[in-house]
Structures are given as C-alpha cells and as structure tokens.
C-alpha cells in the first residue's frame, strides 16, 4: 500500500492501434487519440470508441505529456483544445497535477494565462464584479465560443463543436470568465503570466511582443506614470514654494515727470541707482500715465552704468483710446506698463528716460489745431529690482510636466489598443 506507482499508463487505441498515454486515470473521461483523433471513452473500462476523428490532427505547440513548473509547482499537459469565437481563436492546455487537480493554460497566441475553476461565486458590485476583495469590470460583450480541435484527455465529455457562451470581466493582470450553456455555468479565474514564464517552464520558443494587448494586460506605462506624477507634483510644488519665497522686490527709484502731447521728446535722468547682486539683477521699470486718453506715450529707457558707460535699453508704451460705435462705448489700451531688464551686472547706474507723447487721430476726427492749449500729461516712473519672472516659472513647469504628459499619452494609447473591439 505504500509502494509508489507511476501516474502514466500506456494504452492502445482501438481505432488505430497506436500507443497513447493515460495520465489521469480515474479522472479522465474522454481521451482523444493523438495519432488518429478518435475520441475514446475512458470512463468505460473497455475504452470504447465514442466518435471518429473529425479533423486532421495537429500537434500542439506544447506537446502532450510535457512537464513544467509554474509558481514552484509541477504540472503535466494532459489535454489540448482550440476554441474560436468566430473572429479569433485561442488554445487551452489542460494541466494536471495529482495533488493540485486541474488548471487551464490559456494561450491567445501572444500571452499565456493560468486559469482555475472557482468554487465560490463572484458577487455583483456597483461598478462590476467582486471576487476576493477585487473588483472586475466587464470587458466587451458576451460571446459564443465553440471547440474547433481537441486532443488528449479531459475530465468532461469534450467534443468538437461544443458551445458555451462567455462573458469576461477584467482587472489589470486578472480575468474572471463566466461560461455557460443550458446545463451549467462555471467561473474561471485567469492570471496573466509574465512574458517568457511559460516558454521557459515548458521549453517552447520565446515569443515576441507584437500584436494587440490581452484584455487583462496591465499597462506597461502605468507604474512609471504614477511615479512621474508624484515626482512632478512634488517638483512643481517645490517650484511654487521657491517662487513664493524668492519673489521679494525692492523699489530703488521713483519719480514723476510730465510729457507734452505732440511736442518733441523730453529727456530726464534718475541718478544714483545702485545694484549690488554680484550674480546679476532683474530690473523692472514701470511707467504710468493716468491722464492719457486717445493718445500714447513712448517711454524710451537706458540704464547706463556710471563707470563703464555700458547701457541697457528698454521701452515702455502706455496708451489709451476710447470711442463709441453701434455697440456702445468702448475703450482700449493700458495706461500702465513695464519693461524688464535681465541679469544686469552690479554697479552704479543712471536711468535715462526719454518721453514722447502723441495724440491719436482716428478716422473722422479732426487733427488738433496748432493754436490749441498744450496738453501736458503726468508720467510716473518706478524702478524695482528682484522678483520672479512669470515666464521663467512657466518654462520650468512645462519642462517638469513634459515627461508625465508623454507617459500619459503612451498609457492612453495602450489602453485604447487593449479595449479596442476585436475585428
């Protein structure tokens, strides 16, 4: 009673006389001879013929009887069948281990999944199906499948043409498949196996990665996308924080001037502007002409180094226009504007300001009379240093967001291919 026995038994096919193996005696019910395709009744001690072969025999890619280890457990291929849904086909290997029972190795031509029959039923949840605390979403619509080819041994009366209606539910890496016919409904849980695992375990050729993703294939971009979003968010927040604390400005000079509209340009100087930062200073010069209407002021600026005479030029336009038309009154223009000078070296500077005021004459308006009173407009100039350029911040944020955006696009494209209907 304690002697060990082999599990494989040799039989002779009553139809063709060939030698076939019986690997799961006591469980196997139908055995399809691998030489001639005849279906034999293994439940009958006489092993009678049930059905003659209906198609030419092909050899499965993993031959019957091949042993392989998956997840540390040994499995033997005892049966093989091919199924089709009318548009695409796939294969299923019936794996057997006397201590673990049966498992299904599903081959869609590209990826392998390992499947088990479930003993307990999944429960419906709000957003799909729940099983073992995980939620599965339905993939596609229910479809009919039928067996196209069969060889080896099975624990049910398998036959070419046997039909079931299938509904699939997926989450990344797993699929719940519900199969039903008039007599029964079974649930199978499939786990997508990593590429190369089955090829190494069962000794078949390694496969490439071409082709549509499996319904339950996880996006290869997902985890990198999550990393990138986290890193990018931290970087962006850091950037905003630095901008907030580094944006102090100092006002170094301010003065009020006047300009006469349509008179020649006047030149003014603000002396004694000292820049101290050895690395360079951002200088902002703001001009304001609150009284301007239907005119503009050209403000030409030069920040001249008192020692080296090096000059940094700038220009500000302040303007304002009003009028009425069929829609009512309108106004346009900015009475306040600014120019920025970047990275100005340290030193003592004078700011030379050249103001020219102009009136704007629109169509249908008469030009100013040469003998009218002069229009004198105030212009105030304020020079500040420091601050953060919005343009710099935007550029930095765009640079940070570039990689997450690329990953997001790649992820979306993968998901689109994964959920595309099979045609």
């Amino acid at each position, binding site marked *: 009673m304690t002697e060990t026995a*082999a599990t494989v038994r040799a039989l002779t096919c009553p139809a063709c006389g060939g030698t076939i193996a019986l690997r*799961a005696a006591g469980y196997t019910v139908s055995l399809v001879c691998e030489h001639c395709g005849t279906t034999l009744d293994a*439940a009958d001690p006489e092993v009678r013929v049930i059905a003659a072969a209906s198609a030419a025999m092909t050899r499965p890619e993993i031959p019957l009887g091949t042993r392989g280890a998956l997840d540390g457990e040994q499995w033997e291929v005892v049966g093989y069948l091919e199924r089709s849904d009318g548009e695409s086909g796939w294969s299923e290997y019936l794996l057997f*281990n*006397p201590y*673990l*029972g049966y498992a299904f190795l599903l081959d869609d031509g590209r990826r392998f999944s390992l499947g088990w029959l479930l*003993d*307990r039923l999944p*429960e419906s949840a709000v957003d799909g199906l729940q099983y073992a605390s995980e939620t599965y979403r339905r993939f596609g619509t229910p479809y009919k499948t039928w067996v196209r080819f069969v060889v080896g041994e099975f624990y049910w009366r398998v036959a070419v043409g046997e039909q079931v209606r299938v509904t699939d539910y997926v989450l990344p890496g797993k699929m719940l498949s519900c199969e039903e016919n008039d007599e029964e409904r079974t649930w199978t849980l499939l786990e997508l196996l990593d590429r190369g695992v089955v090829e190494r375990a069962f000794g078949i050729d390694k496969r490439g990665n071409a082709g549509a993703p499996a319904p339950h294939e996880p996006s290869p971009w997902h985890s990198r996308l999550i990393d990138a979003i986290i890193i990018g968010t931290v970087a962006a927040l850091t950037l905003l924080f630095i901008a907030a604390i580094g944006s102090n400005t100092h006002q170094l000079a301010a003065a009020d001037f006047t300009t006469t509209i349509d008179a020649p340009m006047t030149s003014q100087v603000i002396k004694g502007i000292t820049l101290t930062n050895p690395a360079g200073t951002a200088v902002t010069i703001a001009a304001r002409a609150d009284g301007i209407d239907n005119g503009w002021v050209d403000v030409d600026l030069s920040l001249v180094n008192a020692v080296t005479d090096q000059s940094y030029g700038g220009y500000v336009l302040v303007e304002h226009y009003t009028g009425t038309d069929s829609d009512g009154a309108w106004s346009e223009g900015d009475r306040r504007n600014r120019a920025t000078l970047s990275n100005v070296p340290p030193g003592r500077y004078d700011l030379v300001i050249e103001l020219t005021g102009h009136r704007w004459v629109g169509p249908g308006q008469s030009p100013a009379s040469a003998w009218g009173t002069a229009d004198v407009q105030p212009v105030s100039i304020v020079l500040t240093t420091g601050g953060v350029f919005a343009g710099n911040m935007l550029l930095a944020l765009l640079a940070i967001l570039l990689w997450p955006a690329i990953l997001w696009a790649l992820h979306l494209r993968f998901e689109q291919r994964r959920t595309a209907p099979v045609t």
Partner: protein
Amino acid sequence: MINADCPNCGAAVRFRSADLPVRVCDYCRSSLVRSGEVLQAMGKIAEVPADVSPLQIGTRGMWTETPFELIGRVRWRWADGGWNEWLMLFADGSTGWLGEAMGRYMALRALDHAAGRTGVVRALRDDSPIALGMDATIDRVRYIVTDIKQATCVASEGELPFSAPAGLAMKSLDLQASDGRCASVQKDRGQVSVYVGAFVDLAGLRATNMRAFEDWPMPNFAA
C-alpha cells in the same frame, strides 16, 4: 483499534472505528459485516480500479479544526465519469465524506435530520423531476442544484457505514451555495440522505500521508 481475523481468508483485519458495520477485507475483498461480536463474510467486492487519486486509506488531515483519517472508500460511476467518496473518521468518533471528482474535493457531513421539508429533498424521495438550477434551502443555507447523476457503485474498500456492492444504484444531486459551501443529496435503496459541507483543497485540509507517485514530487503545501 479492534483486531479480528477475516472469516473468509483468515487475514488480520483491523477496525479503526467501533461503530461502522462494514469492512472490506484488504486481502480477499470479502465484504465483512459486523453484528455485535460476530463478523460475517457477505460476498466479494470488486477491486477499486487503478487511478491517480492522491488520497489513500490512512491519509490524514484537518477539517473544521478537527483531525480526521480516511478509513474507507466507495467508487461510483455514471455515464460521463466516475468519482470517489472517502470516509473520514474524525478524532471524536464521528464520520464524514470527502467527495473527489474532476480534481476537486467536497468535505461533507450527514445531516442529523433528513431536511424532509426541503422541496428538492422531497422531490428526490418521491421521484419527482428535479431540474438544474432549482433552489434549495437546507439548514438555513441557500443552494442551487448544479448536478444530477444516476450512478452505480463500482467498488469499495476499507471501513464503511453501509455495504456497497458493485451495481448498487444511486441517484445523486450536487448543490452549491455562493460562498463555497455545498451539499449532496443521495437516494439509494429507497433511502434519502442529505450531506452538507464545503469545497476544500488538499492544502486547506493540511493533508498528510498522501499517496506517493514515483514521477511526481510532493506539492509545496505538503513538503
């Protein structure tokens, strides 16, 4: 443990349970029936056909926190296959059945009462038609009928609560609940018996002393 001699061939016969009336002699395959102190040989039982079941007489395990040992087996056959029912002897002297079919296992215990009010049980008793998918509530658990089989006994071995001669006819219903529990209702020789339990696997049963196969390593859970 009770020891006796087979009245037919004289071989030593051991009984692990004092309560079970039937024992198949391991050597001459006579069905030995116990009544009181007397052991009677009542016909021969066929050999159990060779199979690759990992279970054997003497396999031990644990179910519902109670240790058990397999002490008997009945093999049944139906049109589309066969299955084994192993008798579990629990440490407290009670028994249960470990059904083995298609590589899956159901551990079941007989219900004290025959659940006579359940529609399905009555239908089986009265030979009314039963359909797959029929609802049944047994002992406050809801099941649906998932399998209906007409079976005959093929062979038996070890210690059993009833004599199981080859050809004994039996109608068997399998029922499943949604949470892994299951039930079995059987009718043979006019009597209906109801068993309730759950799907199990050998790892979950912490099975030990399983049958060894020369070409298979022990699985990881038993290593």
